[in-house]
């Protein structure tokens, strides 16, 4: 790997490059990106400064700060469209089981997909619509899109480094849990089962699968293969604060049997 060369225009190769000696766990492919709020990063933060002159909330299309005084009037307004595309969606579903599908409420879309169409427009202006909740009016304005990847010092290509202007040190993790253990119990596997496992040591017999909750404490080979959500069976937050390293690595779906010295 040490003698590799990469075409500076090949951003994919730069993104996928694994430095010599680094285990896979150092690479982005091992980090989750459905961030609510995330584990390694709350990567929603990378979009807060995507438009030059204002700062957005990491999760909602709300203007929370202004960096260009000329845009001061947009403070507190809601971004509703970019280049004519809504960044909100309707939430709909049945209010009673088996009932008709009804409009329930509205919700903003996640930044990563809502703004994907403008990622290649760095340095150019796009048309943005903002909604003022007081006047209930939408105002459109052209805003410059920041480049996502650093270009300084890369005259003939693009780097794979996220631009310093998008996030200062600490900002990519600022909206994560504090400490990280907080919510680690409740954030069940509908987020990140591939690195924060949920169902382990499972066995299937006659079409029925039994296994254990990853957080099942003090388990051993004789612990019944019964998935439990009972607090008494699971590690507590105090356990996680004081001794989170009791959590087990899971290899091939099973508790890792650590070799001893």
């Amino acid at each position, binding site marked *: 790997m040490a003698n590799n060369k990469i075409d500076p225009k090949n951003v994919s190769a730069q993104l996928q490059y694994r430095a010599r000696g680094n285990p896979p766990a150092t690479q982005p492919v091992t980090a989750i990106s*459905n961030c609510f709020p995330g584990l390694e990063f709350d990567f929603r933060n990378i979009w807060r400064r995507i438009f030059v002159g204002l700062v957005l909330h990491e999760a909602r299309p709300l203007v929370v700060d202004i960096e260009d005084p000329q845009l001061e009037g947009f403070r507190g307004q809601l971004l509703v469209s970019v280049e004519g595309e809504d960044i909100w969606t309707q939430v709909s579903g049945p209010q009673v089981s088996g009932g008709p599908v009804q409009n*329930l409420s509205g919700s903003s879309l996640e930044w990563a997909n809502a703004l994907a169409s403008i990622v290649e427009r760095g340095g150019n202006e796009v048309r943005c619509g903002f909604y003022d909740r007081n006047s209930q009016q939408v105002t459109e304005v052209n805003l410059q899109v920041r480049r996502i990847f650093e270009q300084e010092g890369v005259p003939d290509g693009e780097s794979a480094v996220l631009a310093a202007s998008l996030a200062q040190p600490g900002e990519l993790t600022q909206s994560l849990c504090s400490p990280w253990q907080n919510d680690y119990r409740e954030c069940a596997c509908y987020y990140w089962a591939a690195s924060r496992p949920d169902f382990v040591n499972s066995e299937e017999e006659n079409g029925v699968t039994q296994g254990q909750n990853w957080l099942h404490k003090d388990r051993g080979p004789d612990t019944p293969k019964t998935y439990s959500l009972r607090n008494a069976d699971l590690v507590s937050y105090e356990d996680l604060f004081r001794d989170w390293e009791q959590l087990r690595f899971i290899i091939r779906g099973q508790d890792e049997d650590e070799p001893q010295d």
Partner: protein
Amino acid sequence: MAIARIGSSDQPMDNYDLQDFKEDPTAYRELIPAETLVVEDGRITGLETPSSVRFRDGQGRIRPVAPFLEVWAAFEDEGSLEPLTAQHLEDLGLSPSDMRWRVRTANLKAFRRTGRDGDKVEADSGPFSDHQNHDLRGECVNFKDGKSIPFGSVQYLEPNDEFPEIRLRFVPGPGKVYGPAAGDPNTVDDVYDASRGTWDNHFDGQPGTPTSTVPGNIYTGRFNSQTGRYVSVGYLDDACDGIVEVSLDLPAEDGGQAETLTALARISSGPPDFAPDSLHVRNLADELEQMALGPEVEDVEASRPQEIVRHALDTVRLMETRVMNGNQNVGGVGNNSNNMAGQDQGYGRAFEPIFNMNVDPSAVRNFHANTVQALADGSNAWFLDIVRQFREVGDLSNAGRHKMPAMMRGSDGLHLALTRRQRAQIQASAEGRVIRDEEPDQPEPPADASPEDDLRRLIQHFQSRAPLHAGIPSGAEPLSSRFADPDQLIQHLLNQPAQGALSGAVRGQPLVVPGDPANSAIVRILRNPGHPMNAPFSRPVPGTGRTGLEVIERWIASLS
């Protein structure tokens, strides 16, 4: 970008590789010990490949993942990037000591909630060019005098003849918890000064503080039943993220001006990856790829849809899918609603399980494994219609919640969608815009295979499509449940009429008219170019030498 992972051991994690099994694309990846750089006294002294992959040291402490960062450079216009070495520097009349490093990291979690600059915990190595270990000491205006949080350390490794590259190593913090009170058994140090700052008394929604995070209240706190507030107890951790900067002054050349070259990298530290042989269905690499290349694709490598579904398989293998589906009477608790079925109630949607079918974890795994296998066997993606589009995340109808990835939560709190680029890659596969190195080998069909033998192979081949038939009744069961037993599915074909929204003009007619393929509804459905099974049934079924439609027609013709 390099991710470090916390651990209290003083022995950083060795290197390893994740190896796929070509013989079985659904098998767990193997962790293979790999060439590990040995660091001693500020330099790399050799390479070692350990005998096994060990995530803990002899005392059971977790070994931190401590990444190396290399400096790359191009030496001519439009030249390639390559690792910068001591020899390169010497050729320029420079030396490794001319490299200037600076590392700034921070933990802004308290600041993000309180909005007070005094709650920023920041570490700055300052400029350095030596090969000493530089602690990243997280300091904060609102800490008690002399207190700090260790974010780990960085070290510029001295290049030598065997390892001449210019590189730095980041070793993260041990993963401890800090707070305001001395003697708190949950914390290792009382760093926060409650007389200066408000973090230990913060509550989301507090007037004068920034708009809350989403989700909110994700700090350790206590619920005050009198005020209805969830109040922080002031805990902090030693995770952080930051920027590594390295610069080099080039001397003036041929009467030109001196120039300073600069390179940046991002680092972070977070919790360990506790399932290191598994990858997320939507991971940061997917995110970065879309940010770099956009949401659309013209074509796709044949292996890419397989990779995406493989990551979904990795994920569901570690999920208790009955719990995630919202089934009740599981896990020994009276109410199971910590799942998407429960989260949907927040929008006013009725609580009910997401799928009204067998969601035993093995059944769900088999569905994904069969899909991976079919893609590995050369099928293009046939499942585009059930892959959620990014604008469909708020569709909480039954059909909307059945889309993939199912039972998982996205960054907006709604049902998870893949990146638009991931879905575009699946769409390209579905539409045949596929780049293949070579056509997959098709096994020779047995010479004496009967029509029913071939039909059974076809049923096996299409096992992974079972969930697409969850909405079609088959007696007391959904048709999807019949796919696991070929006999049951054959009986369905023989005894049931065409049903379901896509059966169109032949709805209600017999699926099979023995001896008469042309008048059998199943054949007319499969011949319809608008039906989603038309394309999959136009391709050969492995081991039969016939297309799916030919297998069906031959079997019906053989019936009397």
